[in-house]
């Protein structure tokens, strides 16, 4: 198990957003976390990524306890996230957005940029090549000099994924990746994600859209009112009466 969530709870004031949720993500799987709006998906997601500290429980990434770590420490360890509305460095180009990300850039130490110009330049060249290749893979080569602020929502989403891949992550967390993008681009996105899995990446996708997630995932967990109420393959989930009740409303 590359990612293990054990009895995680998150309380905001009096509101119990997540209550003793536990689940696992297997290496090289595409795992889904679904639930209706307000189920606590994004909260749980933010706990995993280090944006909120869990109120109770533990999270393990590659057997290391990461609950309590800051978001940047978790990202550096290879757990990359995206956001529900794509976030980017708006007044920077697509290429720059990607080039910001890699770890261990010598030039990020201020004095190195001044005294170690050659080494910095070499590394920049490598990073540029890597970014260019990723953009080419995603069919975004032509947009490389566009500002993020000028991209369409769909393009911004794909650039965000490409940017996070510059971290060389082992697990990619996607928060509602299909939200707000048109069906044609959704298909492109599905192809992209399947290809990433082929390349050995593990994906955890949070969504409330059953259709999108079931076409991708090997295994699904269902979150309702902060608790995991069902788990299984997409077929099992569709047949599960609890899930049907939660999604379609109980029989009055």
């Amino acid at each position: 198990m590359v990612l293990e969530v054990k009895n995680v709870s998150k309380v905001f004031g009096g509101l119990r957003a997540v209550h003793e949720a536990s689940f696992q993500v297997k290496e090289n799987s595409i795992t889904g976390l679904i639930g209706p709006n307000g189920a606590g998906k994004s909260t749980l997601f933010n706990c995993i990524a280090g944006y909120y500290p869990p109120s109770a429980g533990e999270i393990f990434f590659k057997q290391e306890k990461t609950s309590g770590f800051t978001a940047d420490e978790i990202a550096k360890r290879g757990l990359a996230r995206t956001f529900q509305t794509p976030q980017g460095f708006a007044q920077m180009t697509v290429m720059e957005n990607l080039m910001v990300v890699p770890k261990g850039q010598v030039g990020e130490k201020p004095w190195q940029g001044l005294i170690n110009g050659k080494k910095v330049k070499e590394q920049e060249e490598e990073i540029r090549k890597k970014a260019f290749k990723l953009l080419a893979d995603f069919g975004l080569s032509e947009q490389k000099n566009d500002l993020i602020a000028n991209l369409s929502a769909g393009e911004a989403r794909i650039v965000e994924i490409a940017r996070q891949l510059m971290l060389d992550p082992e697990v990619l967390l996607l928060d509602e990746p299909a939200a707000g993008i048109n069906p044609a681009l959704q298909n492109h996105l599905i192809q992209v994600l399947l290809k990433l899995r082929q390349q050995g990446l593990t994906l955890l996708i949070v969504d409330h859209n059953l259709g999108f997630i079931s076409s991708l995932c090997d295994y699904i967990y269902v979150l309702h009112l902060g608790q995991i109420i069902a788990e299984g393959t997409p077929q099992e989930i569709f047949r599960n009466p609890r899930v049907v009740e939660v999604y379609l409303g109980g029989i009055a």
Partner: protein
Amino acid sequence: MAGIVVLMGIYTMLALALNLRFGTAGLIDLGVVGFFAIGAYSYVILTAPAPGTADAYMFGFHLPMFIGFVGSGLISAFFAFLVGLPAIRLKGEYLAIATYAFAEVIQYLFTNEKWLTNGVKGFIGIEQPFRKFFVSANSYQYFYAFLIVLAVACFWYILSRLERSPFGRTLKAIRENEDAARAAGKDIERFKMWAFVIGAAIIGFAGSFYVWFTSLVVPSLFVSEVTWVAWIALTIGGTGNYKGMILGAAIIVGIQEATRFLQASAELATILAASRFIAMGLILVLIIRFKPKGILPERNTVN
């Protein structure tokens, strides 16, 4: 004339430092004058002769000028680090309030802690670098203006290189979107702290240059006007554009000096002194209305 160049140079240094802090890293810093004062006083205390009988200050280390100069930057940077420890996490306006308060506290401290700063009497007759090679004060003025231009060129070179390095790129990313920068594995507090500290070092050095120019240091030199003027120079010239900063500083110093030279009667002089602020305010409003990114705006880099 040489004096105007010197003042322009010093305000350009402040604008350069502010540009790193605000333009690149997005830190709203209203404490410029605080670090400026720390730099100036550090230089003076490090180089001042031992106190005479009429002096209230206890420490005058009488060290060589060069050490005083290096000290002015380092001590200012160190204080920025101390201020940054609690403050650097503050967002936007909260950081502005904290840094503004810091600068005010520094001015009060330097006024009241006579054992350190000699109070309102301050220090006078401060030696200038390479002065002994010049016969007249007048010819020295031109040399000093040249020295300032050289120093500005130096800071310009260092800062523009920093800005174009991966360090600068990460700072810009943090300015644009902190959440995304965190998701990219960046320790944003550390980067902001670097920008804050490097900015303070440059402001501290500018303090030394200012002391050499005025050849005296009193607390009343370090009022918040200095901070505002640096901000106005940066804003009207163009945040993120180095030529813009020099232009901004030139315009501001030009306004200040023009109103000074025009002085005729005592009555008119008061009016002119007050009109300085009106003119600066008017220019600022006009620039923000018609060219919100400044006269020379920042350009985006293309790969």
